[in-house]
């Protein structure tokens, strides 16, 4: 994500906005007519895979799925480089999801077609960041945004790259997490170097009245050796209808999904809940990335 300048990000988001009526099925598009997109997913990911598939089909393209990894040549010991070289001959673009860090960059070295990183390893998931930015722009605003990110900020890759991207727009950031899952301090220092105002706390109540966007993430049970500790944290970092009584009326709540219990179901019907719309925004965002990567939109 760090490879993108603010101007380039804005350009992708502008393109996504133009394509949104197509993503909603209100307009038809033949932009990817005759093009084949290969979805090479080496680990399960329902939303990312489906939204890429929908994005391709809405633009008139065809999808080539790898199918189950267990039944493929990968299980026969083929390395990723060879797989990429072969699929490059079949498809016009490859979306890659892979468990190893840096696999998308390596794939790009071996591919003769464009590669889109659909999430590699534990650090990068750039199309998620694009869709988060698009959601924030559509539902709130990017420039000078007051945002809180809550939950597992230590391991959550979506919040790490979102922080970096939002710093290009001069956001004010509040990090809400239990002490064990704080935002890595090198990220905090990087942000402060860029003159970004950063606040850290462990209480949602304390900050809920003072933010425009609340970005929730899931706290995973396995991060806590002590189950009691997990229960305590889980209940403290929970968005409920009661908590939202103290919120700004314009507050938008986002979540990369799946959620477990960090947002209670009574929040879903409020005007604050934008996480399902956020999941939809993955479609126009990925349409824009597909179309730009294949050069069918300049």
């Amino acid at each position, binding site marked *: 994500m760090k490879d993108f300048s603010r101007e380039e990000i804005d350009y992708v988001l502008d393109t996504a906005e133009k394509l949104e009526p197509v993503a909603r099925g209100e307009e038809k598009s033949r932009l990817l007519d005759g093009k084949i997109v290969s979805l090479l997913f080496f680990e399960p990911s329902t939303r990312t895979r489906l939204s890429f598939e929908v994005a391709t089909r809405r633009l008139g393209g065809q999808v080539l799925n790898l199918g189950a990894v267990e039944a493929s040549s990968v299980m026969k010991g083929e*390395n*990723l*480089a060879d797989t990429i070289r072969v699929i490059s001959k079949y498809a016009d673009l490859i979306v890659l999801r892979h468990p190893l*860090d*840096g*696999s998308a960059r390596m794939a790009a070295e071996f591919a003769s077609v464009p590669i889109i990183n659909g999430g*590699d*390893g534990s650090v990068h998931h750039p199309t998620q960041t694009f869709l988060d930015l698009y959601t924030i722009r559509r539902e709130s605003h990017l420039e000078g945004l007051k945002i809180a990110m809550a939950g597992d900020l230590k391991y959550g890759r979506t919040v790490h790259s979102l922080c970096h991207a939002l710093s290009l727009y001069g956001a004010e950031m509040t990090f809400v997490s239990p002490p064990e899952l704080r935002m890595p301090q090198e990220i905090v220092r990087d942000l402060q170097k860029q003159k970004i105002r950063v606040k850290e706390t462990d209480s949602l109540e304390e900050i809920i009245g003072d933010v425009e966007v609340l970005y929730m993430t899931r706290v995973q049970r396995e991060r806590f050796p002590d189950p009691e500790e997990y229960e305590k944290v889980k209940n403290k970092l929970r968005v409920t209808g009661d908590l939202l009584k103290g919120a700004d009326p314009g507050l938008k709540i986002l979540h990369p999904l799946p959620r477990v219990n960090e947002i209670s179901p009574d929040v879903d019907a409020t005007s604050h809940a934008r996480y399902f719309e956020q999941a939809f925004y993955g479609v126009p965002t990925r349409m824009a990335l597909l179309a730009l990567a294949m050069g069918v939109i300049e």
Partner: protein
Amino acid sequence: MKEKRDLKIQAIENGTVIDHIKAGQALNVLRILGISSAFRATISFVMNAPGARGKKDVVKIEGKELSVEELNRIALISPKATINIIRDFEVVQKNNVVLPSYVEGVVRCTNSNCISNSNEPIESKFTVLQSEEEGVSLHCLYCEHVISEEIADYLL
């Protein structure tokens, strides 16, 4: 005194002398240059030799002039080392090592989940940065992991 020193490490007729290596790093210098038992030239080295600026290591490689690119890798582990090219017992060229901006296949990424540590047909690739606060650091071009300490421990 001079005679005693000559016993430790003799002058060479032709080749490369790497001087002012950080004390204790001579073996790592050989590793970083890819010098193994298959290397045919005569190599001699001293470790922890007393020098004007404290202890140092020295490596002499006879009959072979290494390329600037190979030699500059030494800066990763010993930034003050100097390179002397010797012809007919004379120093014909003397340079400080210069930190390269990029290294390939020299250091292993410390992130065990990095694609460069898997069975793919690729070499590790790092950009090299230097700052006053943090010294030399290597940034993996694949996974973006940073190695800033004990680089010598991760030589391939």
